[in-house]
Every structure is written in structure tokens, then in C-alpha cells.
């Protein structure tokens, strides 16, 4: 038998054993005497009473174990967490995200005693727990702007500055956001919830978390009581971002022919330092004047980029793109994963969000590719665009650009599209943040 199958079989067997033990413990509990948390008032010294106390203590201990409190939902989510870790390690799918999220899912689904409103300060949703404090950064939308600061400090906008018309591909791919928004409305989600779900189509994890923390956080938004959908939206966004190499290529092949896939684009021009410094300042002012709701995200993105390009704040830029973004990624991944506590996460809404998320990635990819083909109708000679780069308009940086490069090389081994694809890719980041700001201004 194949080695990986054996491993999968072992994991499945372990889950079944846990499930059986948990079921048995549930059965034994129904025969046992009801538990009292306070100790017995009778302090007699007889052996019988002592035995009863011991039994009571053991039973209380058992009632606090994970085996006693586990539900099938917990076990399913632990299996999902293990799958995430497996995908990250075995197939190298976004390991920096999937390992923290997968571990977070396991941590968030370790069952513990929750009956009778007892607050052990353990779970992520329990006031005062450590995880609850860390989760504060997600709920209040603190982590996403910090991630954007790091992304700005590590992004080179040269390819976009040298060929600015490719910015339009980043705008075209945002069709995924708005069609998913409509899809969610059709499926019966309220307006703010639909807005938060729609942003999955932007293929940008931090933006999805930021917007869902504002629009679908369980409070009253736009005069409507919303459900807490931060966990399902974040997990859907990050899962599909990791699956970009699986989702995008079939759509790209479906919408292009071999001749189009072999189009060679003229090399990008060298960009002066002055242009690189002007870009973040001008883009910051322009985009945030149009969409002030995107200020926390775009402000930090362009601030990070200015730190990088100014050339005089190397230390700050280095910190933003290394230590800071790493720390925030760890906290964000772990807490988002832990927020998938089965009783909150495993709902029919989550399944609908996952279905909508998959469709939104397909629509966004198709939107970018089709728009590139439309642009080609108005271009000639050297200015033709390889429509594959339209797929990079979704803002999964740099994964979708890498997918474009791989697909391009498949049909012409000397046609490197990576640098061309980076332009719509970073434009997609700006576009999805602008779209998030617009959603906020409409729906808050």
C-alpha cells in the first residue's frame, strides 16, 4: 500500500477511535449520578463516603476531559486541521498560512467543559482567555493593516509603473467580489453579510478578514443583526488562496487558445527611483480619496512601500517585511484557525460560504482573462497582452503570478511572464482593498 495512503488510514483510524471513546463516555455518563461541582457537605469518615468522594472526583475529572466533551463536530474540525497541515507539508500549499491555521483549527477544537455558563477562560470565544485576547486583533481588524504594511515593504511596483495599462486587469478581476456579493444575497444572506462574503472573490486573506470584522462580526450593522462569519470567511479565503494553483489553470485554459498563450510581451522598461518614490504617495492619496474605507489597508500598504523605496529607512522596511509580518502572520493564522470552534463554525452558512468562495475565485480569474482578451482587440503588434496574465488580477500575491508563469512556460519554455503578471497582481491588491472600502461605505 502506498505510504501516504497508510498515513491517511492511520489518521482516520485515530479519529474513529476518539469518536468511539467519546460515544462510550457519553453513554456511561447517562447512568452516573448527576455531578455536583461543590464538594459534599457530609464530611463523615466512613469508608463508603470516602469511596463516594473519590468516585465523584474521578467523575468530575472525566467530565472536564476532552473525551467527555468532544462532539462529532470537534472531530471533523480536527480532521480538517490535520488536512491543512498535511497539504502544507506534503504539497507545499501556502505553508506559512496553512500550518498556523491548521494548528489553530486543532487548538480551537480541543473540547472542554462549557456547560452551565461556566467560563474556564480557555476557548477563543470565552471572555478573558489568552486566545480571546489574541483574537482581539482579528475582531477589531488590527492584524490585516499590519500584514499590508509588510506586503508594501516587500512589493516592487516597477512592473506596474512601467506598464500602467495592466492596472486595468487588476480592476477587471474584482468582478468576482461583486458577483459573489449578489450570489450571497440570492442565497438569503443579509446585505452586510453578503458584502463580507463577496470580498472572498478578491482572493486577499487580510482584506477578507478586515471587511468581515466590520460587516459580519455578530453585531448590528446597517440596522441588521449579523452573524459572526469571520471564521468561515477567513478560512474560505485562505484555503482557496492556497488552492490557486489548482483552481486557476483550468479556467485559464478554457478561455484561451494555444496561440494566445504563446503571445510574447515586450520587456518592461527600467523604472527610475523617482517614479518608485512618487508611486506610493500619489496612489495613497488618490485611492483613499476615492475610497476612504480602505484607508487602514491602503495607508499601510503604501506606507510600507515608501519605507522600501525611499532608500533612507532600510531598517524600518526590513523590520516590516520580515519580523513584523512574520509575528502578525503567526497570530493571525493561529487565531483565525482557532475561531473555527465546531459549535460556531459548523453551520449550513459555512458550507454556502465555501461554495460561494470557490465560485468567486473562478469568476475573478475568468474576469481578468476575458478583459485581457478584450484589451487585445484594441492593441497591435508589440503591445498585445498574453491573456494568461489576466488571471493574476486576483490579488493572491504572488501565487497567481507564479501560476501564470508556470502556465506560460508550459506552452513556450522561453516565454517568461512572471514580471508582466506581477503588474495585475499588485493592482489586484489595490483593487480589492478599494472594493472593500466601497463595500464598507455602502453597507456600514
Amino acid at each position, binding site marked *: 500500500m502506498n505510504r501516504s495512503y497508510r498515513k491517511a488510514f492511520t489518521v482516520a483510524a485515530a479519529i474513529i477511535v476518539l469518536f468511539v471513546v467519546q460515544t462510550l463516555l457519553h453513554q456511561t455518563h447517562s447512568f452516573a449520578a448527576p455531578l455536583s461541582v461543590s464538594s459534599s457537605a457530609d464530611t463523615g469518615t466512613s469508608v463508603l463516603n470516602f469511596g463516594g468522594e473519590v468516585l465523584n472526583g474521578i467523575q468530575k475529572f472525566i467530565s472536564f476531559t476532552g473525551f467527555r466533551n468532544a462532539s462529532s463536530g470537534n472531530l471533523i474540525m480536527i480532521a480538517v486541521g490535520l488536512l491543512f497541515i498535511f497539504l502544507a507539508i506534503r504539497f507545499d500549499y501556502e505553508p506559512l498560512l496553512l500550518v498556523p491555521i491548521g494548528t489553530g483549527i486543532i487548538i480551537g477544537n480541543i473540547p472542554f467543559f462549557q456547560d452551565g455558563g461556566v467560563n474556564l477562560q480557555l476557548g477563543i470565544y470565552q471572555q478573558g482567555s489568552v486566545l480571546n485576547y489574541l483574537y482581539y486583533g482579528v475582531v477589531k481588524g488590527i492584524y490585516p493593516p499590519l500584514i499590508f504594511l509588510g506586503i508594501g515593504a516587500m512589493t516592487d511596483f516597477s512592473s506596474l509603473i512601467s506598464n500602467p495599462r495592466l492596472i*486595468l486587469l487588476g480592476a477587471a478581476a474584482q468582478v468576482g467580489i461583486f458577483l459573489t*456579493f449578489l450570489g450571497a444575497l440570492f442565497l438569503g444572506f443579509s446585505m452586510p453579510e453578503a458584502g463580507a462574503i463577496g470580498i472572498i472573490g478578491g482572493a486577499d486573506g487580510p482584506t477578507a478578514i478586515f471587511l468581515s470584522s466590520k460587516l459580519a462580526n455578530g453585531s448590528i450593522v446597517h440596522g441588521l443583526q449579523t452573524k459572526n462569519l469571520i471564521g468561515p470567511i477567513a478560512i474560505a479565503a485562505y484555503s482557496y488562496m492556497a488552492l490557486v494553483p489548482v483552481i486557476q489553470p483550468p479556467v485559464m485554459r478554457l478561455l484561451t487558445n494555444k496561440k494566445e498563450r504563446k503571445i510574447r510581451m515586450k520587456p518592461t522598461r527600467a523604472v527610475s527611483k523617482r517614479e518608485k518614490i512618487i508611486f506610493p504617495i500619489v496612489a495613497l492619496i488618490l485611492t483613499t480619496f476615492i475610497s476612504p474605507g480602505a484607508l487602514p489597508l491602503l495607508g499601510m500598504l503604501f506606507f510600507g512601500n515608501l519605507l522600501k523605496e525611499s532608500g533612507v529607512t532600510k531598517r524600518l522596511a526590513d523590520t516590516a517585511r520580515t519580523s513584523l509580518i512574520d509575528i502578525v502572520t503567526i497570530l493571525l493564522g493561529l487565531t483565525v484557525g482557532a475561531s473555527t470552534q465546531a459549535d460556531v463554525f459548523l453551520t449550513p452558512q459555512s458550507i454556502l460560504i465555501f461554495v460561494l468562495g470557490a465560485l468567486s475565485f473562478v469568476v475573478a480569474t475568468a474576469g481578468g482573462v476575458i478583459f485581457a482578451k478584450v484589451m487585445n482587440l484594441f492593441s497591435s503588434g508589440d503591445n498585445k497582452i498574453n491573456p494568461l496574465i489576466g488571471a493574476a488580477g486576483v490579488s493572491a500575491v504572488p501565487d497567481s503570478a507564479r501560476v501564470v508563469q508556470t502556465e506560460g512556460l508550459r506552452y513556450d519554455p522561453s516565454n517568461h511572464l512572471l514580471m508582466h503578471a506581477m503588474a495585475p497582481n499588485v*493592482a489586484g491588491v489595490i483593487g480589492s482593498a478599494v472594493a472593500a472600502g466601497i463595500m464598507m461605505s*455602502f453597507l456600514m
Partner: protein
Amino acid sequence: MIAEIQIPTVIEEGIVIAITGYAIVFVALLLLYYLFSSLSKFLTWQIKQNLIKSGRFPKHIKKEDSLHISGETAAAIAMAIYLCRDLHDDESNVLTIKKISKVYSPWSSKIYGINKWSKSPR
């Protein structure tokens, strides 16, 4: 007879938000596109004026676009400069031959090249 399709108000409102929102995203990025296309042209024009003022503008260049060099060309030039400047040590290019007082040197002296254990050819 065509049946009238009833669209709920929420969906109608949603369609308006979606169309308006998408249009705003497009306008924002379209403005960025125009701004940076213009900025590039302005900077090139400025370079051209500076070159003309200093008398270094090549007369055969007619289009301003020709002033742009591709990233590949820039990389090739940078590599050439690196190979020329940084790969070798800087030297004075002055050769000095000093005559030393000691005439005899064991260096290449024949006596040291004779090995008494060497086999003689048969």
C-alpha cells in the same frame, strides 16, 4: 403573455451596489493608469529637455519613447559595469623593475633541479 419577474428589493439594491461599486473600482484604477502614463511621459520629457540643454541629446532620436531602455538592457549594462569595475582589483598600471644588489639567486639554479635518486633512462 410574458410573466412579470418579481425581484426582491434587497436584490435590486444589491445590483445597484454591485454595479456602482465595480464602476468605482474601475474609475479608481483607471485614474491611476492615466496618472502614471502621464507621469512617465512628463519625466521622459524632462530628461529630454535636460539633455538638450546640456547638448547631449542624440539628434537621430525622434520619438521620446526611444529614451526608454528595457529592464533587460539595463541589466546587461549593469552587469557589464560590474564586470568592468568591481570584479578586478584597482591597479596603478605602473610597472616598476628594481635591480637588486644580490646577483646570485638559487631560484631556477640548475643544481637544485638534479635529483640523485632519479632513474636513468634504460
